[in-house]
């Protein structure tokens, strides 16, 4: 075959492979040129339970910032459950979004991949009434702000006002013992409680940690090293939980994840649970009759006080961002009062601001039943409290050490055994990190 014959033939397999390789290479070069030329920022966020909230950013805030500065801000959404996987991938590879939303103690976990934003945090705090103390628990790492606190997605008590009234409770019980009494009466009437004790995302921690703390139990001392779970206080909390489970709840709660209590509430299977504002929100939208009799209250008190979990939502800037100054300027603009107050208001009070300047904001008047969420902020802490934020704390949550300690006791195991197992797990986890 001569050269001319060969060239007049249709593409051979080899030529096809070669052309494909050249084409692919060209498109990669083209794409990277395109990226370099585009001027923009990307913020990765949870796909909010409140659709208005995401829509407000996409339709109002992002266009306003582009008009002001010419910088296009992309709002990339990830489901609540997959956001951490996305953030991990971005942090590990050093490519992807410029800014991110954080949950819980992520500013600590990804500390080395986040920019110091202390200047913004201090200025915003000064301008808007100062930060709630607990916000610092989740966002200040080694004396530096690694995230700007945004809001707390509080976990509080949801109760059926009408059914509680039927058993003699006109207002929500103030203590765990009174709640046990109400629950015992309600379960006898076929209206049990439903508090998650399974491996969910937040509805389990939302009442388990406050229960433990209100009885005086803790996992670790404030030094972050001494394991103190094995105590009389913890034993009393576990004994109470077992009784509370047996006398007030459905057996199924042991296997529940976060969807179950919402489903049970909206199908009128349960008379009390622990959840974010979303239960009332959905009830108002889809089940108005249930919404009318849905009350919200702070967690009950124990011998050592009243506590709540800190579900801190905050914003950070990845250190790999191409233009740190632009990313910081955007975050500062987003936290300025006109933008921030309007963004908060778009979700009513689903995200409870960590700034005292919003304590009496008009958004709290939209649904006065949400006010306990604001009042709970002062007594909110991260799981692991009073120990400072740590990697061990994340592992304890990921392994459901404390939740399972209570769940096993409710399932029939002895108090001594469950505390011993949990203590052994804690010792192992804290000794490694």
């Amino acid at each position, binding site marked *: 075959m001569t050269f001319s014959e060969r060239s007049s033939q249709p593409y051979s397999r080899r030529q096809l492979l070669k052309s494909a390789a050249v084409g692919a290479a060209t498109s990669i070069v083209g794409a990277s040129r395109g990226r370099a030329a585009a001027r923009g920022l990307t913020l990765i966020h949870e796909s909010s339970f409140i659709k208005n909230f995401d829509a407000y950013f996409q339709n109002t805030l992002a266009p306003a910032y582009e008009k002001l500065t010419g910088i296009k801000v992309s709002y990339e959404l990830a489901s609540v459950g997959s956001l951490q996987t996305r953030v991990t991938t971005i942090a590990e590879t050093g490519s992807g979004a410029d800014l991110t939303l954080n949950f819980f103690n992520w500013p600590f976990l990804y500390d080395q991949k986040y920019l110091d934003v202390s200047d913004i945090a201090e200025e915003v705090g000064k301008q808007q009434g100062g930060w709630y103390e607990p916000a610092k628990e989740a966002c200040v790492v080694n004396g530096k702000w690694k995230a700007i606190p945004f809001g707390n997605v509080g976990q509080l008590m949801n109760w059926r006002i009408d059914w509680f009234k039927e058993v003699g409770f006109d207002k929500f019980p103030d203590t765990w013992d009174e709640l046990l009494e109400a629950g015992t009466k309600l379960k006898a009437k076929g209206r049990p409680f439903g508090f998650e*004790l*399974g491996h969910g995302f937040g509805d389990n921690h939302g009442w388990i940690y406050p229960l433990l703390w209100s009885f005086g139990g803790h996992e670790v001392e404030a030094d972050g090293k001494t394991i103190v779970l094995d105590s009389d206080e913890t034993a009393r909390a576990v004994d109470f939980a077992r009784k509370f489970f047996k006398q007030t709840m459905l*057996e199924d709660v042991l296997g529940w994840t976060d969807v179950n209590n919402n489903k049970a509430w909206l*199908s009128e299977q349960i008379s009390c649970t622990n959840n974010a504002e979303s239960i009332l929100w959905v009830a108002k939208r889809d089940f108005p009759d249930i919404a009318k009799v849905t009350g919200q209250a702070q967690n009950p008190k124990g011998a050592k006080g009243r506590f709540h979990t800190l579900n801190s939502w905050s914003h950070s800037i990845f250190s790999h961002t191409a233009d740190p100054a632009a990313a910081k300027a955007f975050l500062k603009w987003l936290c300025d009062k006109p933008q921030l107050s309007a963004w908060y208001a778009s979700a009513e009070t689903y995200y409870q601001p960590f700034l005292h300047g919003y304590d009496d904001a008009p958004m709290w008047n939209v649904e006065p039943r949400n006010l306990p969420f604001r009042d709970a902020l002062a007594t909110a802490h991260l799981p692991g409290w009073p120990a400072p934020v740590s*990697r061990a704390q994340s592992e304890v949550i*990921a392994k459901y050490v404390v939740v399972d300690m209570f769940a096993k006791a409710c399932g029939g195991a002895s108090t001594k055994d469950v505390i011993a197992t949990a203590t052994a797990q804690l010792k192992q986890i804290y000794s490694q990190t």
Partner: protein
Amino acid sequence: MTTLASEPIAGRRPLAARDAISRWLDREAVFSWLMMALPLAFLFALVGYPLADGIFLSLENRPVAQAGTFVGLGNFIEDARDPVFWQVAANTVIYTTVATVLKMVGGLALALVINQQFRMKNLVRAALLLPFIVPTVLSTVAWMWILDPAFSPVNWALVHTGIANPGPSWLGNPILAMCSLIAINTWRGLPFYGITLLAGLQTIPAELNEAAMIDGAGNWTRFWYVTLPLLKPVILIVTVFSVIFTFADFQLVYVLTHGGPANATQLFATYAFDIAMNGGQLGRGASVALAMVPILALSIIGLTIYMRSRD
């Protein structure tokens, strides 16, 4: 061609060289490797590299978003000290063994039934594949409703026939939760067994069965001495695949129970994910994931030897 004509000497040399390269490339040994290069590159990039990286990670104390420090087998030693790890190992072995046996027996029965002649045979065969085709997450959400004590049709039937009141807590009771997951995994995997074994059954020549019948063999004897031995290679392959898929199952558990209640349904894959992603301990997570490999390899080797030895 004008270039070639005006510069005959300079042009012919590269042409000759090109022809030589072409001839070399056309040789079977060379070209076959060339054609395999791309799949091999894919295999290396998508399987080899992640596996090697996983092994490397498992030997490090490697918190997320931080540099790691080499700890040798430290993570594996920590795993061995973790009581939940052993619970997870036991759960995974029970889950895989029971589900695989159920799928094997059920799938074989299914294949034998649909290998018969009946009306709308093809439609039934296609419909049987549905559990396998529907995305796992979707079918799992449907199962979530089926197993919900308040909405479950199973519980409704149990309560209304007076068998149980209240109905069982399918996912709240540790033993029932594991049984439920095994049942769903079996439901999902049965069509794979059924259809693959059906393909195997159809390759068995009818003459063998006819000859056995003439010799006076009954149904059971023909199944035991003709069908089963000829089907064994297919059963082996399907079982190996099934063991691998079931052992590394993630979606079903993650969506339905997330390992609860109190780790009663926690498997290797979900536990590794929780430690690595939610706990931010990539090294520990990798070590839990890799702990699957020797058990899996041993069970597959054992299975293969057993099946071969009975030939």
